């Protein structure tokens, strides 16, 4: 079972409001449990479950979960501890990905989902590294070169200016 199939499975469980599911196939075993603590699975559930018969949308019920947690400083891996001078010295040859707009930086597609990248990750040209939001427009930031993420300059949820460095990529 690959990641896509697992994702589809979880979507199905959310859609059908199934709270627990176990599947054994050969040497593989999948156990999914949805509940108040299962944050990664739940984001869709409150609006869907709480609302009948013609649920619609929501913007308003969820903002606390969407905006606040991310906006709070320190919730996630802020940029890696800036390391010693040796590192800083070698920053000169990093490819710097800059913000194309003014807005708010997000490291994940939505709260509760894993960050697009972290320091040390190998990335390919065109891969999404993060999102800058302004005026409810989500701007996907792509890696302009392939390499390894050496620096993440901006903490999740913080404001960024036009042209501000977001990522340092060490080309390979």
């Amino acid at each position, binding site marked *: 079972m690959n990641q896509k199939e697992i994702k589809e499975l979880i979507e199905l469980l959310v859609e059908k409001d199934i709270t627990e599911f176990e599947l054994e196939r050969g040497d593989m075993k999948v156990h999914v449990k949805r509940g108040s603590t299962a944050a990664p699975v739940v*984001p869709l559930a409150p609006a*869907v479950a709480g609302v009948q018969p013609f649920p*619609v949308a929501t913007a308003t019920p969820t903002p606390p979960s969407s905006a606040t947690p*991310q906006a709070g400083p320190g919730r996630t891996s802020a940029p890696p501890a800036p390391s010693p001078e040796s590192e800083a010295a070698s920053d000169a040859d990093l490819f710097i990905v800059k913000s194309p707009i003014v807005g708010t930086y997000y490291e994940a597609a939505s709260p509760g989902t894993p960050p697009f990248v972290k320091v040390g990750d190998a990335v390919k040209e065109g891969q999404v590294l993060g999102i800058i939001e*302004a*005026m409810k427009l*989500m701007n996907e930031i792509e890696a302009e070169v392939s390499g390894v993420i050496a620096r993440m300059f901006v903490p999740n949820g913080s404001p960024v200016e036009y042209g501000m460095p977001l990522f340092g990529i060490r080309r390979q």
Partner: protein
Amino acid sequence: MDVPPDNPTDARLSRIVRLLSDNATVLISGTRVAEELGTTRSEVWRAVQQLRDLGVQITGHPSTGYQLESVPDLLLPEVLGPMLSGTIFAPHIHHYFRLGSTNMTAMQSAATGEPEGAVFLAEQQIAGRGRGANSWESAQSLGIYCSVVLRPNCSPGDALLLSLIAGIAVAEAVEQTTGLHPDLRWPNDVLLDGRKFCGILTEMNAEATRVRYVVIGIGINVNHPSFSGELEPIATSLRMESGREWSRVELTAALLRSLGNEYRKLAEGGGPARSSILQRFAERSSFVRSRHVHVDEGGGYEGVTEGLDDRGFLLVRTKAGLRTVFSGMVRALDGK
């Protein structure tokens, strides 16, 4: 595993509906439908069954011929296309009966070369997306779930205005079609009587100085009879506000014409077009000036709105001075 049918609607289904709509008062023989579609009578029968499963009311069978009981309010390319002639949206309309999210599919298609003006419409979304983790639950054929692909020749900063013109286009279309007068809550929630009936989510893929593509996703509550639970105080539909149902086909056509028009003005206009957009947004929105609001950004703060800056960002006068709202949700503290 029961994977959702994310396939585009079979073009033959759309053509059958069009053919039966054009001849709404008579039975059309299975042979004629088969000839028009270049297929067999048994394929037509299968397609008709599929349409019935999807809720289209068709009477008859292969030996009698077929007839529509009522013209369905489905957003099919064959129906919408002719209503959009002359706009960038006419040539590439993609319809789905059921889709995860129109925005997600539109973004994926844009990444692989979908042209400017492509439209993605779903009768039902099962994983509609809003801002952040917000879901947008989209019941079948009650609302409009529409995403468009644009490839503006401008800087990423200028593309932010697309967020504002999308809201203006919805308000214009609703006004023309229903006579209702929607309010705009910055940047682009569309409200009636203080409740939201339309949400817009724009996604962009850009380099530092150039936009590759933008997808504008628009969800409109049209014929929902009511909302309950936590949505009840904050959500509404055009039907709930006007006491009658509306044609989603008419509304979608009006919306895309209006959006196409606004987009053309922005693309052609430069500086004057930009100020015209900001001015028209301000005229349509009660939120631009003198509203007491809470802003969900930078830890959250309160203040009184004081217009838009020249990039379209909302200005809010707080005790600590004038602040610029970049992306936060704005909520009224002074009533609707």
